């Protein structure tokens, strides 16, 4: 009699295999449209932040105009252009290129896409190179500007330094001052670390003082070569930070909004659009929806989903490059096996989120890049990113709204009021039925 140990039987089982999901654009309703075309005009950056995920930021290569034209033409060829399209110049410091480059680039893209959609441009910049000439270009083309700045000097200069190790804060302040002098509104994004948690008020005051209308908090993430988040083990500090930002940003007279809190309010106020894929109905999430974000590197290599994946080495998925705009169409590349492997894992992760997360209806499946770098699996579920960017801000805003609603109801039920029950309609004091202030 042969005795087989059950553990040996278990050990012989093959590892889980992700079923390959063939990509067919006809499976999606509404039809796939690109929201952001993220172009890397150059990988070069003139500074050297210690948490940067870009591996080749010393390269001074630049995207040829012919390549960006091809990137745009490929969108048209696959009918990926909807009513609106934003081009984001990103992934490197765009302003290390001459102003004339952007004049030509914008002209080129408008030649290809201008008649087909409302085309707008965004530049994310460290602001160290902004001068009058750049401001003139920004105004001429109504370019939306985001400045990367981490708050007060000590927080900023701890990480955002030159290659010789000097802080860049003073130069960023000059750049923002130049924008203000030209009447250019801008938003900011800040990498937030535990050190920021300890200075929530100083952080908020800085953006108020700089006239920043909206600040996005990029909570330090593990991504690419930046393999570990400094926030690990500091999540209680995160909750307190969010609470303080909420208190500050909704106070009378406050001008600066916090992107994560504003997004939470938006999600509470109205449901996300639904995206159908085969028999699934998922809340729309542009990081898991194929080609909602199209990411093109300076050499024409392209990817989709989380933009920070493009070019990052991975044992399971290569470098996330699905093709090159010089030779491949987006949809044609998506029918290849390397796209299918990524798409299959993202589908698996989205289904797992749907089954396991109470917040799925307000998210639609998280951020694939964070799943990969935090959990080692594109098909995994919750990440620190989910908790810091979505869940805690959502909880904080919802709880605050509930407190405010209770206060309104109590006011409505105060002695002397008609006894018809405290309804929220009674709270509609600031506005007339037309929606105008009464």
């Amino acid at each position, binding site marked *: 009699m042969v005795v087989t140990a059950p*553990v040996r039987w278990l050990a012989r089982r093959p590892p889980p295999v992700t079923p390959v999901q063939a990509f067919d654009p006809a499976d999606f309703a509404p039809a796939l449209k690109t929201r952001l075309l993220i172009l890397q005009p150059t990988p070069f950056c003139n500074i050297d932040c210690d948490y940067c995920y870009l591996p080749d930021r010393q390269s001074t290569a630049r995207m040829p105009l012919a390549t960006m034209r091809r990137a745009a033409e490929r969108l048209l060829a696959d009918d990926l252009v909807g009513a609106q399209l934003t081009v984001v110049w990103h*992934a490197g410091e765009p302003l290390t290129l001459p102003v004339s480059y952007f004049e030509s680039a914008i002209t080129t893209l408008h030649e290809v896409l201008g008649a087909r959609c409302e085309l707008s441009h965004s530049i994310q910049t460290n602001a160290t190179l902004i001068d009058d000439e750049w401001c003139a270009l920004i105004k001429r083309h109504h370019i939306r500007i985001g400045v990367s700045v981490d708050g007060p000097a000590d927080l900023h200069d701890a990480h955002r330094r030159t290659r010789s190790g000097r802080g860049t804060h003073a130069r960023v302040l000059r750049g923002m001052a130049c924008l203000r002098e030209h009447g250019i509104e801008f938003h900011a994004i800040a990498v937030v670390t535990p050190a920021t948690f300890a200075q929530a008020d100083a952080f908020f005051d800085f953006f108020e003082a700089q006239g920043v209308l909206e600040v996005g908090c990029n909570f330090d993430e593990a991504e690419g070569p930046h393999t570990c988040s400094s926030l690990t083990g500091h999540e209680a500090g995160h909750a307190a930070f969010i609470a303080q930002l909420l208190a500050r940003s909704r106070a009378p007279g406050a001008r600066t*909004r916090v992107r994560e809190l504003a997004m939470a309010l938006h999600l509470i106020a109205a449901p996300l659009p639904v995206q159908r894929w085969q028999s699934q109905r998922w*809340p729309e*999430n*542009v990081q898991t929806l194929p080609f909602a974000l199209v990411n093109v590197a300076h050499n024409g290599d392209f990817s989709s989903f989380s933009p920070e994946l493009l070019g990052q080495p991975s044992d399971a998925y290569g470098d996330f490059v699905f093709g090159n705009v010089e030779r491949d169409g987006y949809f044609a590349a998506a029918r290849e096996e390397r796209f299918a492997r990524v798409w299959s894992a993202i589908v698996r992760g989205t289904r797992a989120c749907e089954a396991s997360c109470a917040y799925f209806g*307000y998210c*639609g499946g998280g951020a694939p890049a964070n799943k990969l770098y935090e959990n080692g699996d594109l098909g995994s579920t919750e990440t620190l990113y989910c908790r810091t960017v979505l869940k805690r801000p959502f909880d904080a805003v919802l709880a605050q709204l*509930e407190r405010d609603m209770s206060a309104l109801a109590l006011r409505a039920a105060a002695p002397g009021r008609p006894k018809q029950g405290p309804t929220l309609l009674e709270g*509609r004091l600031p506005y007339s039925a037309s929606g105008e202030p009464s």
Partner: protein
Amino acid sequence: MTSTTTRGSALRLLLRKLTVAIAAAGLLGAAAQAQAHVERDRSTLQARVETMRDAIAQALPEGMSDGRFAQWFNWGNWNNWNNWPNWGNWGNWLNHR
């Protein structure tokens, strides 16, 4: 001797199978419990959000932006929602460091 060995092996096999079965049942039970927790949390959160959306629908004239909703709650200057492109929850993707 042979018979004793065979009986011993069979017993060990039975015990192993039982151990695996109990472990599997435990895992399944834990998974079911975890799923029940998720469903409870999902329902609770959804009910809270729906209550808030109902409040919006009651309180604000049709078509009023959620920016007005924020103003109605006297939330500072959270009123420029209309400038936001409809990019969904992750849409304002500018993850630059």
